[in-house]
């Protein structure tokens, strides 16, 4: 049992495979020891800055964590519902703007504003989800893309400049403290890292638990054959709305973290390209596990560091996307897992 990598959800087909395999498998019980080890790992991870002194690498890890959160959101939706969201920026950036508006317009303290942003983003994504989860994958992808583009255009409209800051974005001045962290501390990588890390662990855990729950099984069964599930007496609509809401919530966590760390909400957060990064990270890492998108995010941030300056990042991203879709539809994590299984002949 200890040979199984942590955070692995039930074995799954590629989210976008044409003929989905049956994915329901008996839930494995996790031994208490493994759960304890994960808990210890989470707590120890928060103290990473004591070990890693370089603010540069910590900053990179924070970027990876935030991108990873957005990618977990995408991976969750792709894996549980078989839907790919092109416009995740609409939810992450939307969360950031909601937070910014609560801070600057309502003059709420940071913690209240963050809670408001997450709650409002979840309610909004529930409403959007109620409208669009019935669409088929391709129209769904375009609807979410259009939503993100629309929000991007709205915040840039000059009439709302007082509220959204227009093209220039919105610099934030926090009132109060975020779990004891002031604005200056939130901007520093070593004091912000625990926030990003715990948020990442939290959303991974959330996605993992929902994936393993009965709702998760129902969702994957709906993904495999919606009509049959309906005939079997299952409600196929509300579980998907729920999954979409969870996705929107997780994505908005990424947005709120960005705004907390940078104290700035820019229209760029709502840009297709920002959502594209998370999409690439999710695809490269693979949606089949909760850890896959995070691995993809880490790889993406490393690539950004290595090739960003030379301008080859986008080229590599493009090639990466094509190669992954063509050759490794289950992403890096799926590839690792399959190789692992082949070598060790674990069922």
């Amino acid at each position: 049992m200890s040979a199984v990598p942590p955070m692995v959800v039930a074995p799954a087909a590629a989210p976008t495979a044409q003929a989905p395999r049956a994915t329901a498998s008996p839930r494995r019980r996790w031994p208490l020891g493994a759960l304890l080890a994960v808990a210890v790992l989470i707590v120890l991870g928060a103290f990473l800055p004591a070990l890693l002194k370089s603010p540069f690498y910590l900053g990179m890890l924070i970027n990876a964590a935030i991108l990873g959160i957005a990618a977990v959101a995408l991976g969750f939706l792709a894996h549980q519902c078989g839907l790919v969201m092109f416009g995740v920026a609409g939810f992450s950036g939307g969360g950031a703007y909601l937070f910014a508006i609560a801070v600057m317009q309502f003059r709420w303290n940071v913690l209240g504003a963050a809670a408001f942003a997450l709650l409002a983003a979840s309610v909004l994504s529930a409403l959007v989800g109620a409208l669009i989860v019935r669409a088929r994958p391709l129209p769904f992808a375009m609807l979410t893309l259009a939503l993100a583009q629309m929000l991007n255009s709205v915040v840039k409209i000059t009439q709302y400049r007082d509220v959204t800051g227009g093209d220039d974005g919105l610099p934030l001045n926090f009132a109060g403290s975020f779990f004891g962290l002031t604005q200056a501390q939130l901007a520093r990588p070593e004091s912000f890292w625990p926030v990003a890390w715990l948020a990442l662990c939290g959303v991974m855990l959330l996605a993992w638990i929902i994936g393993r729950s009965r709702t998760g099984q129902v969702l994957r069964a709906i993904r495999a054959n919606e009509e049959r599930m309906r005939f079997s007496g299952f409600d196929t609509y509300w579980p998907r709305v729920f999954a979409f809401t969870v996705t929107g919530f997780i994505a908005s966590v990424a947005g709120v973290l960005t705004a907390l760390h940078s104290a700035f909400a820019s229209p760029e957060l709502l840009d297709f390209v920002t959502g594209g990064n998370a999409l690439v990270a999710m695809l490269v890492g693979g949606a089949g596990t909760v850890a896959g998108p995070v691995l993809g995010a880490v790889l993406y941030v490393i690539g950004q560091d290595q090739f960003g300056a030379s301008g080859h990042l986008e080229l590599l991203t493009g090639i990466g996307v094509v190669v992954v879709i063509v050759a490794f539809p289950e992403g890096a994590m799926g590839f690792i897992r399959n190789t692992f299984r082949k070598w060790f002949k674990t069922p």
Partner: protein
Amino acid sequence: MDFSQLLSLPQLANALALASLLTILSSGLALIFGLRDVMNFGHGALYMLGAYLAYSVSGALGFWAALVIVPLLLAVVGVVFEYGVLRPLRKRSHMDLALVTVGIALIVGQIVIKFWGTAPLSVSAPESLAGSVSLFGQPYPAYRVFLIFVGFSTCAALAVWLKWTRSGMHVRAVSSQPEVARMMGVNTDRLGLLVVCLGTGFAGLAGVLAGPYLSVDPGMGATILITCLIVVVVGGLGSIGGAIAAAVVYGFIQVIGTVLSPTLAVLAPYLLLFFVLLWRPQGFGRGRVA
């Protein structure tokens, strides 16, 4: 707000100029979707490639040469696209193919930046079209009149081909009922190759035409792609006539909306897309549901 200013001739002509560019692009996109079931997210990048090629070719041989050569070059790109991507991946889902074309768009975009750099370039209209013409007494740029003419004659030619030729009939048949058409002995592979070449060639043509009308910069593809997707979806996926109608409607909303209410002009296309996808997934035309 004065309505005579709204519906003045130059405004209408501006709407038509934008619409004709969109029509050329969207009909290419709709053709490829109809035949190959691929939502080509790389269409914007091909259009951009066409615009940059047109910049170089018209610099060396003149605008008119570019107008002929660039669409042919892009048609060759279409052959590569068909044999390199669409045929090997034909068994994959819509979504997989769409994602692959997103990747291709990134690659093409970087290739363009590699060769031409990131600075915006300008292509000047040929001398014979550089001035302005009198449009019912008002001066209007001659190049836009030319753009409208080319746009709508391309559509007319496309419509004639689809309506009154044998291969056009086959294209319509495959677009609406791929399985049945194949059973009736239509060679969908050959037709697919033709249509993909035509579609990418159209992207090239739109790129050439866009040069003197809009600016040539690395962001041009992504900007117009979303517009084209909206136009194609609103028009009905795979429906050429619907795409043309939607492009004209879009052009008018943009041009008149910018005068009347900028907020509305920004939001209208997206709201239109939402409305169509949610309540009438087949679009204006008799499109297929994706």
